[in-house]
């Protein structure tokens, strides 16, 4: 069963994090991904650029609108995603508890409904 770990956190202002903190976070994330990979549960992982860089498309009254910035302008933003393949919610919880980003944000565990493998939809079971 696929579970998405959605990492939400308040983004630091540009330049407010020193290089040491960035290096440490990167090390923690690669160590975490390594553990997931070796456990055979990691399907995919993405660490996202700041939401200031994002672009959002909407249709307003039939007109396509392109806007800079995130869809929801909230203090916490989606900052990264891990996709895990584990048997059940308790297993997903076990891995989610170890996400380094938990120290500065929240981790949402979202079960998938269906996913594509080799061009075909597969039910998430």
């Amino acid at each position, binding site marked *: *069963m696929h579970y998405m770990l959605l990492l939400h956190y308040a983004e630091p202002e540009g330049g407010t994090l020193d290089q040491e903190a960035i290096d440490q976070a990167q090390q923690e994330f690669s160590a975490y991904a390594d553990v997931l990979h070796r456990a055979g549960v990691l399907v995919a992982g993405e660490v996202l650029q700041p939401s200031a860089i994002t672009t959002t498309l909407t249709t307003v009254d039939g007109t396509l609108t392109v806007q800079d910035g995130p869809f929801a302008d909230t203090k916490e933003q989606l900052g990264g995603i891990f996709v895990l393949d584990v*048997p*059940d*919610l*308790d*297993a997903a*919880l076990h891995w989610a508890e170890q996400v380094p980003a938990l120290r500065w944000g929240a981790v949402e*565990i979202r*079960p998938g*409904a*269906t996913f594509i493998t080799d061009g075909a*939809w*597969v*039910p998430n*079971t």
Partner: protein
Amino acid sequence: MGPEHLSARDAVQQAAEQAAEQAAEYVARTSYGRLVARLAASTGDLALAEDALSGALEEALRRWPGDGVPDNPEGWILTVARNRQRDVWKSSAHRTGRPLEQAEHVPTVETGATDPGDLDLDAVGDRRLELMLVCAHPAIDPAVRAPLMLQSVLGIDAARIARVFAVAPSAMAQRLVRAKKRIRAARVPFAIPDRSVLAERLPAVFEAVYGCLAAQWDDDAAAVDSLAGEAQYLAVTLAALLHDEPEAWGLAALTTFTLSRARAAEAPYIPLDEQDPADWDGDLIAEAETYLRRTASARAPGRFALEAAIGAVHAARRRTGVLDLAALRTLYDALVIVAPTLGAQVARASVVGRTDGPEAGLALLADLDGATFQPWHAARADLLARAGRTDEAAAAYRRAAELSDDPRVAEFLLRRGREGS
């Protein structure tokens, strides 16, 4: 065929129906949770398990009068329920109900129910603990955990649960449906977690069982409904399943002490230390004391063991005729360290007011934020009356009465207020 013959046949038929009904009811009462746990464990679908089980029980009622009650009624019902469960999984109705699941995916529904040993619920171990852990899982809304446990483990109907928790029946039904959907969709596992995770999760299970003790009044003041009996059954079952978990036995003792006083607590309201101990159930008190002794293996008594011990001190009045206030004081001192809830702190202030004088208790109450807490006002009113501050006591009684959900309690408090002045 004369009328006599007919009536004899009718009588036989009636007796068969009665026997069938009794057998099915017996299975429903004694095995409901075990059967639901077995059925749901294989699919993760609690709602489907409950539907399959109620369908199987109906089928038993229909077929047993003619066919006779089978040798292994539980096994018969389990087999029929499993078949119904499998039929639902295979039916197109179920598949079209979940359009994203195009493949004919039948999760691990147990199919081979032919081995007689497999039908012996005791032989495969009791899965009710797994079911209780699912109901009190951290991913489930805490407010729905106790209702969910009552419905899934004991088969209590949603309307009664709604009444006891003072929630509209439709709202309660919706909450239960949503929780079960969540269990299935997010795949909350029916399993006993590792020891460390189990230790983390048990307090929520205890809390949910404790939550079942909550009793409410019907709109109809004559009909009291309480889940004290169901909570006690759940607590004792849980303690037995966990073997040597002291807090589980503490909870079993606490709920049993509470149940022993259920009759005395019926209308009109009388506070615990003024009840006639002769109205309490001596057998249940003895049972509760047995459970309480099993908490002794704990390094330090936990919250429920302490609350049960407080119940034991009250129960001892049945033998000794006096309430041991010094023992109560010691237990409440410990309780507010282990579980410093507002309720425990108010109760402790009340006891201190009787061991050290009302002003000492009032001083403790003054330090608590109890402005909207009914027991705080009730305790304060009592201590003010004991201190001879009658005007203040009357005002406090009125405020406590205003905050009471239970009209009998309000009536009692107002009467006390009038008596004092």
